[in-house]
């Protein structure tokens, strides 16, 4: 049946591929408007300080400066992307809470003047004690970062499903391990930027965003404007990965500067400022306990986590919930307890990064599971097969899983990688490891409470029938949603991809959509597009029926040709029928909207992690470790995904490669580091080490046959799923290679070197003890020698 699709399932070229590779595509930073000013934000040099006085007079006097603003010039209303914890101000009012907190902004005629003006703003601070560690921040007497949150606790979660204590009591083996995940930053290649124009009561913002809708909603709220008076337009976007989901100081300050000056204002973050704005992955301390029976079947799991949230909430409440919620997806167990505390510190705020909340706990769990398997003498892959989730099941935290081919993913990864021939049999220094993952295909509920549909689409067929335009709020940030949705629109209408046009992610011209996050667009925006396409097709077949004197039910339309079913030689073109439709009835338009069904349980936080469908993946990797230096080389990775029906194989595999690349960076190379005063030590691409092309291994991205009943044509997510298993997968491969376990991310060369040295020392003293007890065999003596 699936082979029968005309447009979907094919690797058509990206709809914006040509303009991107030729450099014609315009990003926000490329845009110029007449009279445009340049703006920039002054930020705090202290991690925690009271603002005593701000003097802007000198800056205002500098020729070319058009406006200087502080908290006095902007609405005092607190904002944030998590409605339960609005805790940010456009500019700090009483105090600053991290190095990089927003204090003032300038608009001037050019870059040079702006930078000069920033230096002329005088801010007097009273420096306060600061705290950078979540455990210290919770201690009695720690500096209080927000008055409203005692002991700096931002979010506390305690969930219990089934009875974990009872499960542990009945278990054959119970084990606890503790891991630490590091702070990372999304590092999109394109810096954040925004151009704001406040003209005649209407605010227009061109911006690099993952969600025009949330930007529009929060900007309108901040300035007390009706949403209809705020237009947010996405330009081409050079990556977001979670960091561009919420408006920044650039949009808020830019709007005010534009209103004051009456001119368009362009603002941007440089690389350092991007790191300070952050919203990347949280640092997280993760303790996991599980109880298993004699055969390795998991009976119960307790996850006990603490997160460093940084100075503000950002999307962190969701992150905190996701961290625990998604642990139940991959393995089938009935008893689960999740405790989490997200803590404020005087560091940049953390938020959602690709795989939102899931990758670090997954690293912890997959390492832990390998150790449990080792305790029981079970092969790690076999351990996962024994516990793998089955289709049509419900997790202990009440997520309904429809399609699930995790078992087949594991089996196929096993075959592709040659697991059975390699596990335990590779030469010294080489190792193989496995980990699995799962992710939502869109969140079951939006970020703020609303009953709006999650996605909507309009298709307008051109009056002469030569093309069709899809209007969608879905947000292409490089992942290719414009392409995939046009394929879907063409398929649903019976049209051709090559004649599709798209207008997307402009709150004024396109219908509402929540945007690019939680891997939602192929399923959710796709469902709306399918409905719109089918509405076009229905009207078109009715018209063709009239024209051809055939009942519409007897007609079908495919690749731009309307024909009588079973007699394809009797046909007219899509274009002919569309043109005639316009002549007789006016514009030919199809509409669609998508709202997910009611999902999940009723307990506190039950909404986070719900989704109409879940992707599953198994990853196996082979690594080589230099036993003298600790250097890690990833040789090869096999990723097998269950992502439902595939709309565009090339883009899908591109997503797997990209997600794996990010997971890989977080595994070994990336970490945001701070000095003792909370200043970022590596806010640049030299010392924040994203992997390079030379570091990338050979990747095999494979798929299993799968169909998701909740998704249009059977689709589900892929964009974030492949980030999730990677860290655990490498950690397990390193263990297989060298017999060492690194309990914190990233698994740097030095940490591996250190663990190898500790193991050598331990082995050495153990061997010596044995040698003293019994005469050493030549074999043992050899192993003790320097290893």
């Amino acid at each position, binding site marked *: 049946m699936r082979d029968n699709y005309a447009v979907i399932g094919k690797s058509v070229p990206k709809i914006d591929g040509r303009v991107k590779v030729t450099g014609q595509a315009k990003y926000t930073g490329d845009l110029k408007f007449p009279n445009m000013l340049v703006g920039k*934000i*002054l*930020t*705090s*040099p*202290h991690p925690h300080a009271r603002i005593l006085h701000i003097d802007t007079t000198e800056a205002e006097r500098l020729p070319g400066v058009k406006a200087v603003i502080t908290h006095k010039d902007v609405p005092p209303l607190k904002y944030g992307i998590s409605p339960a914890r609005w805790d940010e101000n456009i500019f700090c009012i009483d105090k600053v809470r991290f*190095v*990089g*907190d927003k*204090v003032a902004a300038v608009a001037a005629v050019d*870059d*040079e003047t702006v*930078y*000069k003006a*920033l*230096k002329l703003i005088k801010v007097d601070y009273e420096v306060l004690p600061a705290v950078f560690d979540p455990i210290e921040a919770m201690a009695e007497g720690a500096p209080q970062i927000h008055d409203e949150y005692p002991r700096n606790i931002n979010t506390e979660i305690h969930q219990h499903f089934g009875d974990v204590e009872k499960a542990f009591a009945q278990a054959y083996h119970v084990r606890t391990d503790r891991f630490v995940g590091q702070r990372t930053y999304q590092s999109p290649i394109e810096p954040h930027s925004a151009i704001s124009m406040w003209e005649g009561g209407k605010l227009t913002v061109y911006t690099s965003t993952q969600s025009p809708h949330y930007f529009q909603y929060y900007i309108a709220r901040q300035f007390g404007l009706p949403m209809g008076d705020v237009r947010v337009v996405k330009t081409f976007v050079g990556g977001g990965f979670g960091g561009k989901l919420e408006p920044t100081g650039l949009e808020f300050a830019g709007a005010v500067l534009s209103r004051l000056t009456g001119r368009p204002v362009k603002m941007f973050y*440089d690389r*350092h400022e991007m790191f*300070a704005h952050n919203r990347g992955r949280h640092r997280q301390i993760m303790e996991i306990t599980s109880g298993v029976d004699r055969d390795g079947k998991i009976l119960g799991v307790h996850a006990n986590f603490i997160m460093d949230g940084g100075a503000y909430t950002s999307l962190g409440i969701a992150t905190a919930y996701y961290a625990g919620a998604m642990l139940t997806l991959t393995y089938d167990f009935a008893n689960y307890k999740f405790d989490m505390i997200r803590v404020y510190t005087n560091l940049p705020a953390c938020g959602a990064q690709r795989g939102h909340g899931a990758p670090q706990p997954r690293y912890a769990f997959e390492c832990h599971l390998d150790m449990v398997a080792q305790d029981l003498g079970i092969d790690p892959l076999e351990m996962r097969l024994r516990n793998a989730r089955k289709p049509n099941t419900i997790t202990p935290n009440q997520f309904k899983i429809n399609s699930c081919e995790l078992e087949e993913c594991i089996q196929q990864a096993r075959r592709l990688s040659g697991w059975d021939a390699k596990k335990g049999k590779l030469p010294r220094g080489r190792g193989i490891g496995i980990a699995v993952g799962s992710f939502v295909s869109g969140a079951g509920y939006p970020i703020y409470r609303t009953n709006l549909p999650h996605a909507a689409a309009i298709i307008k067929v051109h009056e002469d029938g030569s093309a069709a335009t899809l209007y969608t709020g879905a947000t292409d940030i490089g992942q290719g949603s414009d392409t995939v949705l046009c394929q879907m629109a063409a398929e649903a209408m019976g049209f051709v991809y090559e004649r599709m046009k798209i207008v997307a992610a402009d709150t004024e011209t396109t219908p509402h959509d929540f945007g690019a996050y939680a891997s939602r667009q192929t399923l959710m925006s796709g469902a709306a597009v399918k409905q719109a396409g089918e509405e076009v097709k229905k009207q078109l077949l009715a018209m063709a029926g009239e024209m051809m004197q055939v009942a519409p039910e007897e007609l079908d339309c495919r690749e731009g040709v309307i024909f009588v079913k079973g007699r394809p030689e009797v046909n007219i073109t899509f274009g002919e029928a569309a043109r005639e439709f316009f002549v007789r009835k006016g514009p030919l338009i199809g509409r669609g909207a998508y709202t997910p069904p009611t999902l999940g349980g009723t307990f506190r936080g039950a909404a986070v992690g719900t989704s109409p469908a879940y992707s599953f993946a198994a990853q196996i990797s082979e690594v080589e470790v230099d036993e*003298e*230096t600790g*250097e890690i080389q990833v040789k090869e990775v096999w990723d097998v995904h269950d992502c439902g029906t595939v709309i565009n194989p090339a883009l899908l595999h591109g997503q797997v490669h990209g997600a794996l690349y990010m997971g890989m960076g977080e595994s070994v*190379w990336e970490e945001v*580091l701070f*000095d003792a005063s909370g*200043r*970022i*030590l*590596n*806010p*640049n*691409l*030299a*010392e924040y*080490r994203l*992997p*390079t*092309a*030379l*570091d990338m291994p050979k990747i095999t991205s494979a798929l299993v046959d799968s169909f998701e009943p909740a998704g249009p044509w059977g689709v589900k997510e892929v964009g974030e799923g492949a980030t999730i298993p990677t860290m655990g997968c490498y950690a397990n491969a390193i263990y297989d290679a060298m017999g060492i376990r690194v309990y914190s991310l990233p698994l*740097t*060369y*030095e940490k591996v*070197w*250190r663990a190898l*040295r500790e193991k050598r020392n331990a082995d050495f003293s153990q061997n010596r003890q044995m040698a003293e007890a019994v005469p050493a065999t030549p074999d043992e003596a050899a192993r003790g020698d320097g290893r």
Partner: protein
Amino acid sequence: MRMVRFIREGGKAMYLPDFNYYCPHSVQEACAILADLGAGAKVLAGGTDLLIKMKHELVVPKALVSLKNIRSLADIGYVEGKGLILGARCTHNDLVNSTLLHQRYLSVAEAAHQMANNQIRNIGTVGGNLVNAVPSADLPPILIALGAQVTLVGPGGERTLPLEQFFTGPGQTVIAHDEILTEVVIPDQSTTGSTYIKFGLRRSGALAVVGVAAAVTVVERVIREARIVLGAVAPTPIRAREAEERLVGNAVSTELLEEAGIRAATACKPISDIRASAEYRRDLVRVLTKRSLRRAIEQGHV
């Protein structure tokens, strides 16, 4: 360490401060301008170090004197009796692609190839790498191992000294503010092999955590002469003399190289920074010394 110094105060400008710009056509003219302007003037070559420092306001020169019009500084040549001459304005990619280097000292071309990334290699220069004098710089160790000399030209004339004596501390050298480094000379020599091993934390675009260069003269498996130079483990590149002494006069063996490695590790004075701990660096010196010796002994100038 270098990057640590780049940290700016929050909000401090990432914008080039104002400066006057000169682009003279001869070394003499350049020296005269430098002498005239005093300490506030700086030489500009590729700018890959200098302009970044200026953007971060770590240096704020009143004037830049560009070498871009002084063509003679961009040559690589061989002069009988003198040796192989690298003009100070040669880019790293000039070294990477030099046939002369490929024939005589592939090790230098390989060291240049391990630097930065292609964009930086296309514009960053030999002179800049030396005068900038960062302890982790990649060219000094291999050039010192090969006994390179540098020529400095000032308003008062010219002087030549061993590169080994050029560096005095992080970011510090013997060069006077009105002097220009014009060329690096690798003298003719009897060494049978040389190499540089850089240990960075990723495959491209990573500064050296440790760099070890070795140059050896081996005759019938006996080491006649050895020079080992360590980068990124002391305020300047340093010779591992105790290790060298252990080698000379002895037949090549695994134990010997191990021992040289241990001696080099003992001699170095690493610090801890965001890239690595002192302890790790020291052990890397041990491993890389032994590996670089093995490679120079077995494979020639690579």
